[in-house]
């Protein structure tokens, strides 16, 4: 293997979904900046974040879109879902209602998003369960939270069974400790079908040929021509 030939690079739009306060943004911050903020305010200020993911055969550049809170009253716009090639549906594994909500979002994605979208179901806040100490524990932690320091309310089996039924990738993570976070994104990167990676912009999730064609047609407003730009205040 030599490094001489640059690996092909593809851009992938990834959208985040899930109930408020399950840790959607924290997961992304951990992935993008390897950072975690306790008591983070509800998401403000980032339109989207980008992060590269290096696979053996190619580089995937994730363009990660946050809901910007528009999911709170079911007010996400069609543009949010459009051409998304991957989605991270997050629930809080200490909060059963958040899994119910996650299932709702999976259904919504199946209704609104491109047919080939890769969906990962992610149970976050693993650090609040006893599994965080015994990493490979398989025991069910649905009860007795306080005694054992285990706040888990959604069993791995239940969520996993649902994920298998709907053909979703499934992970339990901790944005706080970083456990399994990069694994989620790598798994998504690997699961994106090669055929939908052709266009660099990721515009052609459902129709690659159209995606490429529109690349030539796109008008770049960042490039006002000298001749006409004198009274165009695009400075």
């Amino acid at each position, binding site marked *: 293997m030599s490094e001489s030939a*640059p690996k092909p*690079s593809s*851009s992938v739009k990834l959208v985040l979904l899930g109930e*408020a306060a399950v840790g959607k943004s924290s997961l992304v911050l951990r992935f*993008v900046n390897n950072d975690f903020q306790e008591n983070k305010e*509800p998401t*403000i*200020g*980032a*339109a*989207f*974040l*980008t992060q590269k993911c290096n696979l053996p055969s190619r580089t995937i*550049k994730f363009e990660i879109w*946050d809901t*910007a*809170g*528009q999911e*709170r*009253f*079911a*007010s996400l*716009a*069609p*543009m*949010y879902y*459009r051409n998304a090639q991957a989605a991270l549906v997050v629930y809080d594994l200490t909060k059963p209602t958040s899994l119910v909500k996650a299932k709702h979002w999976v259904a919504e994605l199946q209704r*609104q998003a491109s047919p080939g979208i890769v969906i990962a179901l992610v149970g976050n806040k693993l650090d609040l369960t006893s599994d965080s100490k015994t990493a490979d524990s398989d025991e069910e932690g649905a009860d007795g939270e306080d005694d054992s320091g285990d706040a888990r309310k959604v069993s791995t089996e239940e969520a996993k069974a649902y994920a298998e039924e709907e053909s979703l990738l499934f992970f339990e993570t901790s944005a706080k400790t970083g456990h399994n976070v990069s694994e989620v994104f790598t798994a998504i990167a690997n699961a994106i079908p090669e055929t939908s990676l052709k266009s*660099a*912009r990721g*515009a052609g999730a459902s*129709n690659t040929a*159209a995606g490429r*064609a*529109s690349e*030539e*047609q*796109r*008008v*770049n*407003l*960042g*490039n*006002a*021509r000298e*001749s*006409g*730009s004198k009274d*165009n*205040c*695009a*400075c």
Partner: protein
Amino acid sequence: MESLAETEWDVVISGTGLQQSLLALALSRSGKNILHVDANTYYGGNEAAFSLQEVDEWAAATGNVEVTKAEGGLSFPRAYSIALAPQIIHTKSELLSQLVSSKAFRQIEFLAVGSFYIYEPDNASLNRIPSTREDVFSNTSIPAKSKRSLMKFLKFVLDYDAPPHRETWTPHADLPLRTFLAQEFKLDERLQADIITLTLSLDGNITVKDGLRSIHQHMSSMGLFGAGFAAVVPKWGGLSEVAQVGCRALAVGGAVYMLGTGIKSARASEQRIDVSLSNDIDVKTRFLVKETDVDTPTMSLARLTAVVHSDLSSLFDATVEGAPSPVVAVVAFPAGYAKTPDGTASEYPIYAMVHSSETGECPKGQCVIYLSTMPQPNAKSLLDNALSSLLGAVGEAQVPEILYRLSYTHHQRVSRPSDSNVVTLPTLPLDLAFNDAALASVKAAWETCTADDDGEKEYMVFEDREGADNDDYE
């Protein structure tokens, strides 16, 4: 998070039409507590774009909307994004400048508008309108004498508002442009029609003042962002896309969004406004920006939107080398050109905006054709006639099949004058080209809402948000 009722809102905005959404964009870095609601369950208000299923839902809720579908040939409902109020945006429009300076343009794909055509009833064909001086030079169907007159006019228009030229037209400012073209420039009827068409004047009777401004806008927009086009459209349904991007910008700035929730009533006192939402939540706010509640429309347009089974490729040729392939063609039927089956001619022009599948509004191999005309008796029948004339004139071996038709009358409503803290935004004018005049009320609303803020404020000028980069991803 605090409950809606307990929050001291700075601004409550109602409606997500283009103007409210631009206001959302303008306020997106203000740090204000903003609640943005819309009685509709979709973004975009009068400028929304719908899948076929959403059209059906909207039709059922609105009434007086007619939808017909062919037996086969249509793709799945979400493969379509039908714009209720398609408009082209001249590249010189202030709207684009604001989208660029606010960095919102990065989330919108703009595509080029191509040629304008006039339907020629005598030989049922489409004549392309020359719209640049190079075009006029190379045109072989215009007699040399007319060419000279036309060149003279085009030169005049480029500088029309400067001293030597101003005096020529200001005495006739309110006369019909048509008369002015005939008298001052000796343009024949065909060239008059060509020039009136470039203005997209809905009644075909545009004044000298408005007409010259409009032609100037068109001519000076040519080539601004690339060769061969004077206007653009946002991909995926036009202005609806701009509205969604504006609202998302404000959401990213921390505002709360609620669709399907309108304003039931509002009571203003000196310090604050008590607003009752349609979901029975009462909120308090310092400013309220609402949609107009005047019910009488000031202007209406009869519309017919059709999906046809053809890519109508002959309409989308790039006319200049190196130009992006256009995705919109405009076909005009000047007043009198379209006729009902019993021979009644149209009183007003009919315009057809033909959108290729590259707009993202329909699947490949199909086109969306948006026809509109001023209300008149038989408007529907006239629009039908114009559609079939157009399809017969595009030079396809077989007349393309119509897969889908949507007819409705679209209304624009004026607003009441604003009270001090309650601002009312009108609905967007129903023009076919975006009119910058619509931006003034948005800026005024922004000024009201930010009047008490300290420090210097620049309207719609922002830095890129973290993470938004401009590289081309190799």
